[in-house]
């Protein structure tokens, strides 16, 4: 075997020249047919005449609303060739569909799956693809949240880390194999090169687990720094994780128990300050306070399960906390005597 051949076998053709302490990997596109990745922001974009996926034949694939569904040009020839009605999710009551468009890009055939959802303002779309690869021993998936065709927008796009199906916002840092590292991404489209190197800024510990009050399993807890440069999914970090010091917001969270799930509306929450070389533990979850509104007309009172709100210790509002058939009992009392006038529960059909 010649030296030249030996060299060719030992050095992979895609290897990058990487400075010491840095690691570079290539992330490649993969279509996701059954989308189960939970994103920290709504990825759906309103469709304005076309699905803006560029191809050799144009800048997108034409879409036109039709009845409750839409018609779409799936092969890029400008002709609306498929009528899609979509299907209403029995749980969410949201009508959605999945379409796959195909054509040529740079002379090569490609297929692009997209998720469609019917919103009050009309049909909207979101990507159904990721760029994925391994950084060290940590699998990552980049998601183009804003639908602009790039996967590298810090603070806007998302990244799934370590096989979690809960993605965090893409930041300038990443927890890789338990170590906080800076990450730099280069390239566009279907291939992106990710380089990581040790983070050199001030660091503190953020713990979302130890002071959380709740019986369920924390399935997701995503924070983002106020300057949107850093974001972490911390639900699996039992003792917290090293993060760049600064102010953070909880942007998404979810707990579950058995088949039940509850998510968090974080808009009423304050920020979390992570001081350098200190541990910050967020006190949230229980005790949960339930508030409800009711309508009263004369001697009739109407209560609506949709109007019961559950607020946690950090001001977070828990949504979906209404297992079907499990009603709270409402005691309606005489204000003066305290005598219970009526007990009521929501019907078993609710």
């Amino acid at each position, binding site marked *: 075997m010649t030296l030249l051949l030996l060299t060719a076998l030992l050095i992979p053709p895609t290897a990058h020249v990487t400075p010491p302490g840095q690691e570079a990997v290539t992330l490649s596109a*993969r*279509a*996701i*047919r*059954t989308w189960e990745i939970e994103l920290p922001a709504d990825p759906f974009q309103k469709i304005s005449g076309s699905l803006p996926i560029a191809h050799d034949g144009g800048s997108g694939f034409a879409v036109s609303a039709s*009845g*409750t569904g839409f018609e*779409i040009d*799936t092969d890029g020839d400008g002709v609306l*060739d*498929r009528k*899609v009605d*979509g*299907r209403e999710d*029995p749980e969410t*009551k949201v*009508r959605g*569909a*999945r*379409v*796959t468009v195909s054509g040529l890009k740079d002379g090569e055939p490609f*297929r692009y*799956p997209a998720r469609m959802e019917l919103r*009050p303002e009309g049909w909207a779309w979101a990507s159904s693809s990721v760029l994925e690869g391994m950084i060290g021993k940590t699998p990552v998936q980049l998601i183009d949240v804003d639908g602009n065709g790039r996967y590298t927008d810090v603070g806007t796009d998302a990244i799934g880390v370590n*096989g979690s199906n809960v993605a965090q916002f893409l930041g300038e840092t990443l927890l890789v194999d338990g170590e906080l590292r800076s990450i730099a991404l280069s390239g566009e489209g279907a291939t992106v090169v990710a380089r990581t190197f040790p983070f050199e800024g001030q660091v503190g510990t953020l713990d979302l687990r130890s002071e959380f009050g709740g*019986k*369920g*399993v924390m*399935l997701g807890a995503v924070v983002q720094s106020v300057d949107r440069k850093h974001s972490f999914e911390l639900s*699996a970090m039992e003792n917290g994780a090293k993060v760049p010091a600064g102010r953070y917001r909880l942007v998404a969270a979810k707990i*579950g*128990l*058995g*088949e*039940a799930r509850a998510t968090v509306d974080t808009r009423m929450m304050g920020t979390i300050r992570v001081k350098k070389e200190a541990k910050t533990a967020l006190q949230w979850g229980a005790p949960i306070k339930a508030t409800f509104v009711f309508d009263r007309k004369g*001697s*009739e*009172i*109407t*209560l*609506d*399960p*949709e109007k019961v709100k559950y607020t946690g210790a950090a001001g977070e509002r828990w949504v979906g906390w209404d*297992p*079907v*058939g*499990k009603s709270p009992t*409402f005691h309606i009392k005489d204000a003066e005597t305290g*005598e*219970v*006038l*009526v*007990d*009521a*529960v*929501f*019907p*078993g*059909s*609710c």
Partner: protein
Amino acid sequence: MNLVSKGVACAVLLCGIGAAKPVPQEGPDGAASQESQATGGSIPVKVVAGRLVVSCDLATAANRIPVNLFLEHEGRHGLQLHNRAAATLRAESADGTPRSIAMLFPGFRVDVPARELGPEEEFEEFTKYHSAEMGENALVGSIGVDVLKDWTVTFALASGAVRLEPPASDETVASTPGGIVSSVFVESDGTVVAPLSLIDDMAWLPVRWNSGEPAGFMLGTSKYDTRIDVRAARRVGKPAGDVGTVRIGEIDLSKYVAFRPEAVVEVHPDLALGITGIGLLESFEVRVDRARREVRMKPIRAAKYPEADFAFFSARAKESPDALLGYLESYPGARLAPEAARLLLDDSLADMASPEDVNAAVKWIYDTMEGDLRTTRMLDLMKEMADAGESDVVVAAGALGIEAGRDDRYPNAVHEVHGLLGRTLLDRGDGDEAWRHLLSAAFGLPEDGRVNYDLGRFYESQGRFRRAFSRYVQAVISPESGGLAIDAMQRVQPLLATSDDDTREPYSVAMVERMIAGKVRSFGAASPFVKSEETPVLRTVLVEFFTNGHFGNEERGGAIGGALGMEGLIGHFSPDSGVERGIEFESGDAEVSGVVGTEAEAEKPEEANVVFLEYHLPVPRPDALCTSLGAKRAAQLRVGDPEVIVVDGAVRSAGAGKWRDAEEIYNRGRRAVLGRLATLGDHELDLLDASYEDGVLSGTVEVYGPRGEDLAVEVVLAEGRVLYPGTSGVVVHRRVARGSLLGGTEPLGFSEDDGEDEVTFEFRRPVSEIEDAMAAHLDQLESEGAGSAPRISMTIDPREMRIIAFLYDRRTGAVLSADEIIPEGIPGDELRVLDVEAAPASAGGR
């Protein structure tokens, strides 16, 4: 309290605040069962498609039905019940108060205070695919831990039984020799006795895994496979679930089952490692004694590791189509092969596999399904893939589905496959092949709206417009194709003259109504109303009908009964020829202004003294005929569900029922109207000089009578007939209120006493404004989460326009006087007489 089903409204209404009224709890004793709840007993169970199923009767004081139920030891519920079963049982009283339900087992019964709603689609799907194994009764619910926790439960699945015993009393437990078990030990017969942990009623077995780490295994029966937490499995580098030994004392669970890696979303102080499955429990007799906090596991079968199960979990963990294909080729008849085949298809599509590979995956789904359900399975796959735009899969599945059509358990499945395959081929431009399949579908399902619509599309594409129009007419009566068919008829009708020499009649609802006569249900009064001394007419009465195009269905009843009853009332009290046109005329007047006199006019009945309005409310979901006016009027009259006829805002009559109830609904409504007609009022309202010009409706309302602080006038644009085929079975809706002609949000007040005998109001509004308001109201309903409605029949047909005005009390909604007029200037004035001659006595619902 007011019970309504989910999706309708879940509000609870409490009446009579001010008096103590605890929630009543009825017993189910009316079921006349002699069984005792105290004794317990043995429940026969069977494993069907990997689920534990119990057959029993359910009973309330009102009814008793035989059912199948899942038995889910880890289900966080008591008794879940499908809404349809609950309705049959009358599981809630009319005001929503839950009724106690008895589960009747051989020799004993178990009572629950109320049912809960469960995953209805899952119940229905299970029944569809496994009806043969379960017998003739549907699976309608599930028994969960809230029921089972009150018993000592023994799972003897190998002998097909679950035994329930009353729990030991505290005294008995205290006197137990040896006390409460604190550690695992083995009895002489091999039974392992272990302490039981109870966390929020969930029962946990103590296990050791991963070289002795303690963990918890939940005792579950809802799945066949024994699950292991996928994160824990990955942590030890075993994503396929082969984590090594998992021991309860001497028993190594990993010798009996291959663990299925799944997310275990549970909490345990050590580690929520997994959940037992039915497959594991079949090898043991397991006694769960919550009072003593102990579990006893007696092996009854030798351990036999299921290699095929592990092969699937291993292939699945590799996330590669090749691995799944390898599994299928090795274990084509295995229990998990259907799941593997489906996963193979998903992965093949995600990996953009070649059409040959995708078709091969479809074939695996076909091959791994039971012989008499293959066509049904292919049909379900076709529907899903059609929605996803994967037409190649639809075509491949269709071809396979047709192959097995004769053997399928559901004879209509093959016809549906032909229909969907034909539609897909038509979309792809393969018209001739599509036509062949669509004809086959129509042969089996001649009334299927979508098949007729697609055949119409084919004929239209061929320029065979008359044949196309005929198919569209058949399609218009079906809710799933009605909207499309209306558009298609309007498109094709002008082309008919080019294909034959017949004189064209302009497209109209009246024309469609005639064409569908006989295909839809109708109800007509035996004779028109004639006033007499016994039935005097002392006022004009307003009949308001609150309905919805999707309320109920033709089979079970709902809007269909009300619509047919209303059709009878309209035919009886308000034949078209009796409505004024443009200018006022006196009752009994023999001339109709603006219309050329004919013989038909000479027989014109007296002026209609009963006017009708139909409002659509967004319950159970919006339809395109819902308006803010309807919502406002419903609020004034305190109408909740769309199932009532209100006469003069004062007398209520049934407005929903089965189609065969139409005569009774008509008779009740008629009596209510006659009562009001015979009541002299203090007020009189007249509509005058109504006209339609350049898209604008205008006119005058004159009101006589004493003023009142709360009195007001409303002027409404209604359409005589509107096509809206909803799931209720009603196709043609009559006298549909489209919006207020007053423009603003407030009605005209009739309160100021200026000394004049009468007050004259003028109104003027472009029809397009009303159409915009209709669309805006639907947008608002959607944004409020009420649901969306197909936007069909949203354009008001001028030929059907009627103006209705009424004077009413804003406080109570009571109507004091009303009038109706057809404006002058609407298109088709010249055809008016023809309309009279052709006045149909037809066609309310399918």
